[in-house]
């Protein structure tokens, strides 16, 4: 098996597994997680990564299918999320230091962006 994936720092792989579980929204088996990862990882590696996330309390599991299924643990009532949203979007000025991945789009930008992505589609 190979291993563009396994050469990367373990922390990066952990975050990828966590992202998969959050994106899925429902409980996933280890095999499903492995299939959803863009990196090509060994089955044992995925099991180890899930084990570490389990220890940190980021992920929960319950019996399901032929073993366990794993799910992302949500914080209580999304309290942190609401507070964060208030901090970032509450004030009148934008934060300069916290570089957001994407800033707001105006209608002109939105149309332009749709055109660019459309053209790119093979």
């Amino acid at each position, binding site marked *: 098996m190979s291993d563009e994936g396994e050469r990367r720092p373990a922390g990066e792989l952990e975050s990828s597994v966590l992202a998969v579980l959050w994106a899925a929204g429902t409980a996933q088996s280890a095999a499903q997680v492995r299939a959803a990862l863009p990196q090509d990882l060994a089955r044992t590696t995925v099991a180890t990564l899930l084990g570490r996330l389990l220890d940190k309390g980021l992920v929960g599991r319950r019996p399901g299918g032929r073993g366990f299924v794993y799910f992302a643990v949500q914080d209580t009532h999304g309290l942190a999320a609401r507070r964060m949203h208030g901090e970032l979007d509450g004030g009148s000025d934008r934060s300069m230091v916290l*570089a957001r991945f994407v800033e*707001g789009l105006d209608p002109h930008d939105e149309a332009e962006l749709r055109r660019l992505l459309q053209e790119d589609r093979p």
Partner: protein
Amino acid sequence: MIMLLVVPLLLPWILPPLARRTVERVRPDIALWAVATSTAALALGVAACLGTLLLPLALRLPVLAAFAHLLQPVQAGPAAVVFCASVLAGGAIAVSVTAGARGARAELRRLRAVRKLVAGMPEAGGLCVLEDERPDAFALPGWMRRSDRIVVTAGMLRALDAGEREALLGHERAHLAGRHHLFLSVAQLAGWCHPALTAVVPVVSFAAERAADEAAARACGDRRLAARAVGRAALAAASLRSGLQAPTAAARGTTGPVPARVKALLAQAPVRRVVPALLAMALLCTAAGASSLGGAVWLHRGVELAQGEHPAD
């Protein structure tokens, strides 16, 4: 000769177009360095000149004149001109310091609040996920033994496919690894010094995004994938925000930063290290430095004369 101190106050107006050209044409990591350094250098020039211009007015105060051992008032050109320049410089300093203090306080307060929230959250490989359907993602630089974090909402992770999620994480890791927040902070501080430098702040921010985009494209080995990640994330964020957010400049004809980033990722990777605009920026900084130094030397001579030294010495 007082013009030597005024020129560095005018030169920053030339920087924004040069900075924009540089960011469009040069490798973004180099552009980020070059533009941020030039902005900082010109801001220093502006601050030095304003301070020097304030000197003749300050030395009229008996306390300060005695402190500087002046025997007579400083003669630095036509008295009316010098007085006006001094007063204007004092006003400009007051405005800048007020804006800077207010802006810096708001920014620091927000950073502290966000850090406190993130500190209580579990993480994996630096990633914290917020349970929020609104797509959002940002890099939070570490501070005082707290390590770097990437904060992403569940909504953002669900809006992207597996490859695009990796591109997003690669982008945020590049921001943190490149310490881009330092460049952004320097640019923001410079922006408070001079209105023309305020116009460069978004250019520095764009250069940082471009540098992180290129790093993400390299990390996932696919420029089109990185382009799609940026584009789809922006569209997802826009679809939820629309209605809440008033369009800021719907009428403007120019392309906003997000489409420009996607376009750049769909084109070939930029490889040029130097372009005329970058050299022109270097020249601009040199000119501003030389001019403010010349002005300071000239005023220093004026002060020495007022202290009773003879011109021949």
